[in-house]
């Protein structure tokens, strides 16, 4: 279990970065989503306690618990990320309809 979390973080960030660097706008969206989930896993690992049980009311005897706060935090973060991603998805659909392309390089119309 000790290996799984860091591995998950690494894979999520790595895959996310790879996708963000692609030219397709949909891959950008997916990549940003993966990076967001990588950050969520970092957050959940900050409350990690060895073989802790699920922190649900009613089984107080089975100590130790994992820290419930990071889990509450990532729930919030997931909801926020979900909303932002949905918006980004709608926006990229709009870009596709307006410009008839999903290539990021062709969208770039403004001067730096």
């Amino acid at each position, binding site marked *: 279990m000790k290996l799984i979390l860091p591995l998950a973080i690494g894979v999520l960030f790595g895959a996310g970065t790879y996708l*963000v660097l692609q030219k397709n*706008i949909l891959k*950008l969206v997916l990549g*940003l*989503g993966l*990076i*967001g989930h*990588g*950050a*969520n896993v*970092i*957050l*959940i*690992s*900050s*409350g990690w306690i060895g073989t802790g049980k699920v922190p649900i009311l009613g089984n107080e005897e089975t100590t130790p618990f994992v*820290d419930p*706060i*990071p889990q509450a*935090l*990532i729930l*919030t*973060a997931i909801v*926020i*990320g979900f*909303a*932002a*991603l949905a*918006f*980004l998805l709608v*926006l*990229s659909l*709009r*870009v596709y309809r*307006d*410009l008839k392309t999903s290539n990021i390089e062709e*969208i*770039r*119309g*403004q001067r*730096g």
Partner: protein
Amino acid sequence: MSQHLILPILVPLGTAILLLLLRFIPLARLVVIAIAAVSILGVNISLLSSIYKQGIQTYQLGGWPAPFGIVLVGDLLSGIMMVLGSIIALCALFYSFGYLKEEGQQAIFHPLFFFLWTGTNGTFLTGDIFNLFVMFEIMLMSIYSLLTLLGDKKQIEAGLKLISMGLLSSAIFLAAVGGIYALTGTLNMADLAIKIKPHADHPLVSAVAMLFIGVFGLKAAMIPLHFWLPDVHSSAPTPISAMLSGILIKVGIYAIIRVFCLIFVDLQATFQTFFLTLACITMFMGALGAVAQTDLKRLLAYSSVSQIGYILMGVGFFTVAGMGAALFYIISHGIIKASLFLAAGILKKMRSTTEMSEHGDMIQHSRMFTIFFFIGVISLGGIPPSSGFFMKFQLLKAGLDGAFYIPVVVAFTVSLITLFYLFQSWQKICLSKQKDLPQTLPSFKLLAPVGVLAILSLALGLAASPISELTQAASQQLFSPELYIKAVMGSM
């Protein structure tokens, strides 16, 4: 404990929801907006005055005591920022009625605008690092939608940049929160300040501080994280440009001040050179970028980058005088820049472009516009008796007192460049000859907010001493974090 502190969040939030429900009844929306906007400004001013009289105030959301629940904390810094935000928002709101012609656009614009207002007020009030993230996201989400509301191609492209930036920065924010939570086991900022003290030399603390600088620097658009700002600020609908440049980039600066004057107090000396170097580069590169622009809104956007450098410099001194000067700078620059952006919006309405070569002869078409624009130019350029002179003077004086000679020299040079590009743009737009006649003349609805903000910036120059007393008091409070900690944790 007073209920006063929750009102700056509750009133805009309730208004936004009410506006959503009243979508198809325009007249009722108008009444609600008018009452709510004025009352938010009133609430914020009375809050600032009560903080000034009675010291830092706290409020426990849901009645949960300090380190466990989310607290709202009102100190002088947040009070000042909220009042500034409300003034700019009120003007932008009034302006939006003249700017957005279609009823349908207004029906979406106004609820989102109040959500944005909720987010900014919440950011300034919250005393919890994760709640800061949530409030940031409320703010950003409203900006995303407000930016792309009109569906212009440029806006959608800028929106794509802004959202990608926002998603990335929230990922970094979460990583930073995870790091700091793993170390201390708390999220309350006052509690963090206590618990991080023994770990001050831990490398994780500096790493987290650096992540926070990255996140907030991205929001404040300090170089090299400024890349999104010119596109976003120049293509946004004008009332939103004014909000963005007037108050929202200052939110990033606010967060930097908050974490470095409360949580990472011991790292101030370590990061000082870093801040000052970044500030100098930001100032200089922003001004150079502005000189090269031919579009007024882009010029103003680059100028915002440059001015953020000034504010960052004041923060980077980490002295009471420097911080006070930076706060004065935030107020003064917010008002001036909002006024200038709103003025640029008038030009956009007149000839449907903000390209400077397309404009001219404004002095023939509208005397008032020329005067208001001129006030903005001399204020940002730093010519007395405008508030711009005092903001720069205080900053440079604080720098000289602290013996930071190189930043002061850079700041002085850059202020000359600022004066140059602003005067040039004014001359092009107001004095130079232009044969084509404009489509429309500026209406009262659009000119009034510009005028109010311009006159306010002049008044700020004339009444500089009471305001700078206030900012100095706020700065004093920031450099005695034990006051903040006691106010939050004392009720345990």
